[in-house]
């Protein structure tokens, strides 16, 4: 399916334009110190080597930083991962783990960060995968077992911000 306009705009302006030979958006650079937790999800192209890895730096009270590492193929995954780690940074593990990735209503902060007017479904699916990745990285940090990523619905042309949906 076509990449939605909000995803396309965010990717072009916030990510692609900031990439170069000598730089990348900060969320996509590794830490200078060993992470306190890490986890991976296979969300961007559905398996194989298309794995997005999330690393966290923090403790039991706060996540000081979160980063993404992957040969990301899908613009929507770039966008979703970027938004989710921005959201997670500075929050407590309890707060992060409280979000249910299967409940689309709870993904509202991510959609708001992308585009308040249109909540595209291609972003929804990637938000879910990215959230599971960050949550499992937090669980790894906490010494808790990670949960297997649910099979999220394939993206459609749906707009979750449309009241007539």
């Amino acid at each position, binding site marked *: 399916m076509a990449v939605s306009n909000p995803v396309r705009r965010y990717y072009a302006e916030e990510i*692609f334009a900031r990439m*170069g*030979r000598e*730089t990348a958006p900060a969320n996509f*650079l590794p830490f200078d110190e060993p992470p306190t937790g890490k986890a991976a999800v296979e969300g961007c192209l559905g398996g194989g*080597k298309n794995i997005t890895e999330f690393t966290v730096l923090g403790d039991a009270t706060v996540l000081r930083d979160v980063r993404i*590492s992957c040969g*990301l193929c899908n613009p929507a995954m*770039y966008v979703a991962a970027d938004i989710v780690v921005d959201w997670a940074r500075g929050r407590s593990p309890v707060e992060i783990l409280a979000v249910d990735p299967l409940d689309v209503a709870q993904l509202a902060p991510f959609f708001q960060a992308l585009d308040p007017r249109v909540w595209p479904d291609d972003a929804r699916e990637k938000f879910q995968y990215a959230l599971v990745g960050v949550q499992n990285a937090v669980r790894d940090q906490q010494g808790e077992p990670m949960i297997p990523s649910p099979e999220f619905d394939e993206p459609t042309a749906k707009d979750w911000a449309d009241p007539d949906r």
Partner: protein
Amino acid sequence: MAVGWLWGGWGDCGDLHAPARAAVSLAPMTLAARDILELREAFPALARRRNGKPPIYLNNTCMTLRPRVVIDALRRYYEEFPTCGGGRSEGAQKLDNWFQDELRVYEVAAREAAGRLIGASSADEVVWTRNSSEALNIVAHGLRLEPGDEILGSEREHNSNLVPWLEAERRLRERSGDPELVVRRFFELDADGDFDLERALAAITPNTRVLALGHASNLDGTVIPAAAIRALADRVHAVGGVLVLDAAQSVPHRRVDVEELGVDFLAYSLHKMCGPSGMGVLWGRYALLEQLDPFIVGGDTIADTWQDRVDYKRPPGRFEAGLQDYAGMVGAAAAIDYITETVGYDTIRAQELALNTHLTERLAPLQCDHFWLLGPEDPARRGGVLTMSSPSGALINAIERIGDEEANVMVRRGMFCVNAYLHRRFDRLGSSKNNLRASVYFYNTLEECDVFADIVERVVKSPLDHFDDE
């Protein structure tokens, strides 16, 4: 640390008027078109069509296509003498039965051919393996290393020539009781990824017991010159060590002679040179093979067994556990004969140079802040390999996807089993995982390169237009 991207300045992607570094000088002419067409007719896979179009196979660094003569050789085994071989190096001239006697003729000839290809002094120095990885594992497991010994490699070893040594390091740590014991060390390459003899020589210490090197890089095609390998072999021998050469990416493309190089062990794979899948070779100096502990043991590796002990065969038999891929041996001999006699290394070299020069001339001017080439500028130093890199995996993916869907182009994306090198050089720039490699062999054509280059050009000039349908 030096950063290993390519040469020249760059502009914005999509800026057709951005100043591009002048392309490299013209290459030698490609082979006559009729010669290439004649060679291509030997490959059944090239006759296939999807959506009315032929395959454009540019993934030869991973595995090459197979000519009819190799396929026929494989079939010959299954149709004419599909039985178990064995009796290797035991002096038996007459085996048990009709089929075994016929198979033995091919077995012996294949081992001799595999050794002759690399200048081995005896067929008994040739061990059949599944691939170069297995060959290198046999050496890494079989050498009797002690805590305090050092293993040396470059910063860009293929996982097949890295992981077995990391495992050796782990075992030595356990034996020594020192979890911090450093066994494997590495030396840096040039900024553009090319080999630096002085750095390598300087890294050899009195404790170096193993120098394990990749002869040619599967990432960018760079090759360690023969004289450099000889110098390294002399130096490592002077301190009592051995030189292990991963020749998986060199033997298929150039004449390799173990005596000229002075190496002690060498690994190569037949499936990278028109041979059967899952066939490889470990060559070792016989005296060293005799000192090597067997890795995978069992049937056919032993001279005799009792309830409490085993006597192993002499090499190479002690390293070839269980029934072997006899069809693969027959096919291997056919592949070696095809490469050396029908095609010839001169033809391979000339065609790879012509094609890679053409690809480089097409793609180097496209370099920009979102797209560049890895390795040295001069295609003559990159064999048949051209690897592209980008901070955007979506751009790399679009090239691969469009190539596959529109033109049946087969290339390879990812880290190509040199993760450690790419992580070390490019993680801090966020681009270590976004690479695309096109690798040519003698049967590829300029027209195929142009089809691929056209797609790359289209995506790089307007990358944001090609991210749909991921």
